């Protein structure tokens, strides 16, 4: 079988909730266990063994939560929009489920990034909130997520809700770079070059390696929780299917 044909078959297997439900059961530990171990390693390393920052002191250790959450919440938005596009074009139910569950997870990571950024701001800038370009962009990202969630829950029909939010998240994805650019421009106009939370000229390895570990751990955790949610969604939607009833009631 050619690569293209193989890819096509693999792609279409994602259309089947049954295929996903059976496969993902085996994938879950491969996501959950490494996620847990990486997060544990990253946390211990970051909180205890990473050196103190010469300028910010120990408050710098918030980076190990703030940065992974910020990166992840942006990636999740992108993934949500791509899944939505796949749902719009190929009508793949699983993409719809993924997009639906990306929104609350992404919103909670955006919230973590925002809250930890604000907390970090207190020892750094002396106040809980500064209209810093990155924090402001993160706040707008959170608004975008909340908009997607609000639209989804306002629409009764599930298919319509999935497609409408797919459009909204695609419009969001296209606009995020424009919003970020405009916020940065606004920021330089009003407070030129203040001290940035995370922009380090050079970070020693003992600082960025645990950060990298945390980022990977967060991605794996996201995969794990997304699959958990999607599995619950499969049950929610396919409760009339015999294969599912058999599988769940036998256990």
């Amino acid at each position, binding site marked *: 079988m050619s690569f293209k044909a193989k890819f096509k078959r693999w792609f279409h297997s994602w259309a089947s909730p049954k295929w996903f439900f059976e496969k993902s059961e085996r994938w879950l530990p491969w996501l959950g266990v490494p996620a847990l171990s990486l997060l544990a390693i990253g946390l211990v390393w970051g909180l205890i*063994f990473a050196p103190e920052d010469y300028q910010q002191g*120990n408050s710098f250790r918030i980076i190990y*939560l*703030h940065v992974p959450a910020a990166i992840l919440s942006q990636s999740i938005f992108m993934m949500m929009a791509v899944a939505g596009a796949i749902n719009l074009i190929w009508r793949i139910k699983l993409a719809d489920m993924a997009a639906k569950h990306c929104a609350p997870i992404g919103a*909670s990571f955006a919230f973590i990034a925002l809250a930890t950024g604000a907390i970090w701001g207190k020892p750094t800038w002396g106040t809980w909130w500064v209209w810093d370009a990155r924090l402001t962009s993160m706040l707008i990202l959170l608004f975008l997520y909340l908009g997607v969630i609000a639209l989804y829950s306002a629409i009764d029909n599930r298919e319509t809700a999935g497609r409408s939010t797919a459009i909204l998240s695609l419009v969001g994805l296209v606009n995020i770079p424009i919003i970020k650019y405009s916020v940065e421009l606004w920021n330089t106009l009003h407070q030129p070059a203040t001290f940035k939370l995370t922009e380090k000229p050079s970070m020693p390895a003992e600082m960025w390696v645990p950060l990298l570990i945390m980022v990977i751990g967060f991605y794996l955790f996201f995969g794990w*929780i997304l699959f*958990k949610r999607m599995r619950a969604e499969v*049950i929610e939607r396919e409760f009339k299917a015999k294969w599912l009833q058999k599988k769940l009631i036998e256990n």
Partner: protein
Amino acid sequence: MGEFESFQAFIEMGGHGLYVWLAYAVGAVVIGGNIWWVGRIRKLAEQRLRKYVRRQELEG
């Protein structure tokens, strides 16, 4: 203990303990909430399925 001289110093974080631990507490609560929520929706979905199966059996 790593960068810190004592457990006490680790908790205090050189005076930044409040901020560091508050940030991590927020993270833990939100992530814990996510895990709790997924368990809840799973349980509800399974309950619905069981109810449906039971009704089908009753109707024959």
